[in-house]
């Protein structure tokens, strides 16, 4: 059986690898090729990169991308972990709560985005109405059109959409922590917050670390929320890199410049991932 397996194993794995190679690795190589060509297919070196980098917009885009993804991750992790810990408690209605909380994550991003856009609407939105009723603001705020509020508003939506996923994963991680760890802490007289900070969180570290990586990837990919809520506006205050790639390719039909942006995007994410994995691996 062992002898046979040397050939059988690859046979099982091959179809999936072939499909992924066709759909991921070939396009990946092709992106690089497109990025150094002009629309006629002539080699132009780094010309497309220069064009893209010369645009002031690219700087804005990069900054927005980091702000959007960074803040989203921080709040997704904090809120998700807190809710995960809450869900780990025993109380009546816990399973109903568990089922309910996952819904934002399961529903289509476009539904979340349009619903929130409607809630954030300056004139007819419920958020302005409630905030005014509660005396928090005097006049309606243009949440999605004010440069100071547009990013926070988008981050709120993204956090709302993804924290349930963090909560569920954290819950799974918590349930894997052996009970005697807590009992030992309790015998030592630990209070609840001690317990959380000195026992629970350190035990969760591996889960949180891989979650951060996943959230970063998803955050970098996600243009649905921004596309549907602001299209990158006002005046490019909320445009992020994938959105700019989309615009360059499918609104302006400049595929080569879009490819140059894609290559930059790949490099940045690649570097981040490698950095992250090395730092994380060292600490382990």
């Amino acid at each position, binding site marked *: 059986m062992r002898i046979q397996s040397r*050939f059988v194993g690859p046979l099982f*794995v091959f179809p999936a690898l072939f499909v992924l190679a066709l759909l*991921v690795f070939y396009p990946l190589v092709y992106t690089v090729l497109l990025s150094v060509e002009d629309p006629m297919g002539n080699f132009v070196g780094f010309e497309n990169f220069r064009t893209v980098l010369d645009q002031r917009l690219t700087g804005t885009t990069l900054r927005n991308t980091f702000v959007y993804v960074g803040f989203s991750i921080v709040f997704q992790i904090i809120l998700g972990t807190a809710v995960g810990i809450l869900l780990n*408690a025993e109380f009546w209605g816990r399973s109903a709560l568990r089922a309910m909380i996952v819904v934002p994550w399961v529903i289509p991003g476009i*539904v979340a985005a349009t619903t929130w856009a409607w809630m954030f609407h300056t004139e007819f939105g419920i958020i302005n109405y409630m905030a005014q009723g509660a005396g928090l603001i005097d006049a309606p705020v243009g949440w999605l059109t004010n440069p100071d509020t547009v990013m926070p508003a988008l981050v709120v939506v993204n956090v709302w959409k993804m924290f349930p996923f963090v909560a569920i994963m954290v819950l*799974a991680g918590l349930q894997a922590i052996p009970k005697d760890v807590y009992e030992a802490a309790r015998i030592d007289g630990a209070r609840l917050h001690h317990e959380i900070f000195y026992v629970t969180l350190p035990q969760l570290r591996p889960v949180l670390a891989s979650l951060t990586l996943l959230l970063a*990837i998803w955050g970098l990919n996600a243009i649905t929320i921004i596309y549907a809520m602001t299209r990158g506006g006002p005046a490019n205050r909320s445009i992020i890199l994938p959105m700019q*790639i989309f615009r360059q390719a499918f609104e302006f039909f400049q595929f080569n410049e879009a490819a140059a942006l894609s290559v930059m995007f790949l490099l940045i*994410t690649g570097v981040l991932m490698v950095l992250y994995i090395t730092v994380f691996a060292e600490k382990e």
Partner: protein
Amino acid sequence: MASSSRAVWPVYPLAAVVVAITMFPFLWMLISSFKNLGELYTVPPTWWPEAPSLQNYLNVLFDSNVPRYFLNSVIISAGSTAIALALAILASYGFARFKFRGKSLAVGLIIVGQLLPTAAIIVPLYVVLNWLGLLNTYLGLILAYLILTLPLSVFMLISYFKGIPKELEEAAIVDGASRLGVLLRITLPLSLPGVVAVIVYAFVTTWNEFIFALCFALDSGTKTLPIGLAEFTTEFNTDWGAVMAASMIMTVPIAILFLAMQKLFVGGLTAGGTKG
């Protein structure tokens, strides 16, 4: 479980806050979908529809492309889920049960597939699909969606297959069954929760997908529901009431599917996410 047997903290108020945060947008969507046009655009907004009406739903169901897009979504999601499942079952079994040269490289490739920012490959993928004549076809989207679903599906199933005792399979092999036969008759039935998790994961992911559909589906014959919803907000005579009704129509099937399979799905996902 353990830490909380001491009910020292205000669980219920906290739970109430969490429920309010997660559910409010749905409630507002639901309420808005029953309001008529005039009421939607009144200032201040009303908390409860004064004259609840099904008009928005009727508009969406009989006066828009949404039914067609619904059909497209079902076909594309089901097709892509089926292919992802078949490929993932084979690949995970290969990874879980066999040692072979290049295995870690192969696993590495799948991890890259999982971590790759898909926005970076829409452009070449568009060119490739166009070259294959698959732009604006069901098959084109079905294949493109494999990029999103296949890698995690493989990892989810690997951990399930590893959990099944080899001895069961070996007994069958001694009795003369083929490897594929063993996989289908013994291993797979035992990993049913994992299979269900993959199905739900792949279906939900493809049902919700937006960007690929936006770029690769160009007409009503292939556009999916999320694109239909985005179009709603830009067309001449549609409005937020219809958008909210269409949102409900999109959300309900997925919510039901998810809630029905919730236990299995979360189990499978956490297995794949933490161990893979």
